[in-house]
């Protein structure tokens, strides 16, 4: 009974964390889908968002939900900046160039963060009560993170399906030459997608801080880059919606394995969960390499 209680608690937490993972990966998939660029510096933008949340909270008492809006704006600005300064010039170049360039952007951001804020681990806690679900108690902060992630994903979906710009972007994703002859400014949409992708990523960094009490530091991004890659592949790589659902699956596997591993005597579950999550995903990908939701 005790196990079942713990396990269902873990699953609920997995769903919540999964939503944030999904949001964290949508930007990566959007950028890949439109520009065919794998953003290796992805995690560094999450780190930027985490620091925005931290400083806004500790300096001005700004709650993370408001920081998220600020992070989105900062992220969009950063996205446009790096697009026009770096990415724009590399789109015709071999794939390795964009990999190296985004890798360099990631290192650059992390080093700037270290130079300005130092290498320390930081954290804050946003106490807004908690929700008792019987099997487990969840801080309201996490509930807000879950709800915000879903709202943002739905908003992005509607933007894609219902607006003129969203439709044009679908055209660019499908066939860039076809989009061009319809009078769509293909390069303009490249810039916009990169900016929105980075904006979403920086914003997700704000929500990530609600799950890592003392984990904010300049190099925190690396682990999220890897997780986002796995989630993106799970979701079929080029689809932001696939990524969102991939996030749920990853969150469930990561958290669900915690309780199960705890049953094995002599095993310290925390360090093993991440290993197991990746192992399960590896098996999944071997069996279904196009991703769980991807098309053949």
């Amino acid at each position, binding site marked *: 009974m005790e196990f079942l209680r713990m396990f269902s608690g873990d699953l609920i937490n997995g769903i919540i964390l999964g939503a944030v993972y999904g949001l964290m990966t949508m930007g990566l998939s959007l950028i890949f889908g439109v520009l065919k660029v794998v953003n290796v510096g992805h995690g560094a933008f999450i780190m930027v968002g985490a620091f925005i949340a931290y400083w806004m909270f500790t300096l001005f008492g700004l709650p993370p939900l408001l920081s998220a809006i600020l992070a989105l704006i900062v992220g969009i600005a950063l996205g446009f900046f790096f697009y026009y300064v770096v990415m724009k010039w590399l789109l015709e170049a071999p794939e390795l160039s964009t990999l190296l360039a985004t890798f360099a952007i990631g290192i650059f951001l992390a080093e700037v963060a270290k130079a300005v804020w130092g290498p320390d681990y930081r954290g804050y806690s946003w106490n807004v009560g908690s929700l008792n679900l019987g099997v487990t108690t969840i801080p309201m902060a996490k509930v807000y993170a879950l709800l915000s992630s879903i709202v943002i994903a739905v908003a992005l979906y509607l933007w894609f399906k219902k607006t003129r710009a969203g439709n*044009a972007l679908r*055209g660019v994703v*499908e*066939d860039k*030459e*076809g*989009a061009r*002859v*319809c*009078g769509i400014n293909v390069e303009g949409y490249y810039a916009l997608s990169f900016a929105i992708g980075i904006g979403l990523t920086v914003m997700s960094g704000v929500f990530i801080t609600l799950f890592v009490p003392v984990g904010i530091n300049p190099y925190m991004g690396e682990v999220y880059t890897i997780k986002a890659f796995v989630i993106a592949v799970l979701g079929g790589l080029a689809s932001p919606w696939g990524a969102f659902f991939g996030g749920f699956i990853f969150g469930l596997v990561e958290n669900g394995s915690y309780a199960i591993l705890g049953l094995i005597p002599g095993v310290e579950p925390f360090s093993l969960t991440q290993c197991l999550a990746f192992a399960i995903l590896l098996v999944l990908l071997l069996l279904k390499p196009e991703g769980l939701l991807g098309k053949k």
Partner: protein
Amino acid sequence: MLKIVNLEAGYGPMQVLWKISLNAEEGNVTALLGPNGAGKSTTLMSTLGSIKPWGGEIYFEGKDVTTLPSHKKVEMGMTLVPEGRHVFPNLTVRENILMGAYTKRASKLMKESLDLIYTLFPILKERPGQKAGTLSGGQQQMLTIARSLMTRPKFLMLDEPSQGLAPKLVGEVFETIQKVQSDMGLTVLLVEQNVDITLEVAKYVYILHEGTIKAEGTSDTIKHSEDVRVAYLGI
């Protein structure tokens, strides 16, 4: 209507077009014939602006549009049916068609354009919800032509519309092109390798070979000029 003067273009270090000049007269079908790799697609793509011209000038209705980005040219009334169709495979037929009405000018005329293309292409009206990628080759070609008409062009470039189609379909596609051209008063620049049908449809023909214009003249002249036929068209 469209005038190209000494156009040069290429890819990376490789020059493909060497000072090409041609003229597409208003209300006519002008054709650009030539063998594989002659530079026909390169000419059309640099005219629309999907690749940047290295030199020369392009005039549309008397205005210098050489360096204008392609979306501005489409807004002005130029467009291209690209080689190899380029439909949006996972969007529906209807979504594909509506994408053609993206520009401000075209979106104002959308209702009217829809009526027009549904009369021309009844097959597209029958399957609005089908994914474009699942259409047959001929249907996809019709769809790209319909989509290009939705942009309300005055000047339409067509890059090998007969490519990969069964002979019967080729005839159908060309009939449609002729009908559209005369109904809408379009100016057409047609790129083809199918010599016979092109000489029938076009009024004036340019022969492109290894990136230069080797001959030009009315269809009749070209048809009867033995030299041109043997040297560049291989027939």
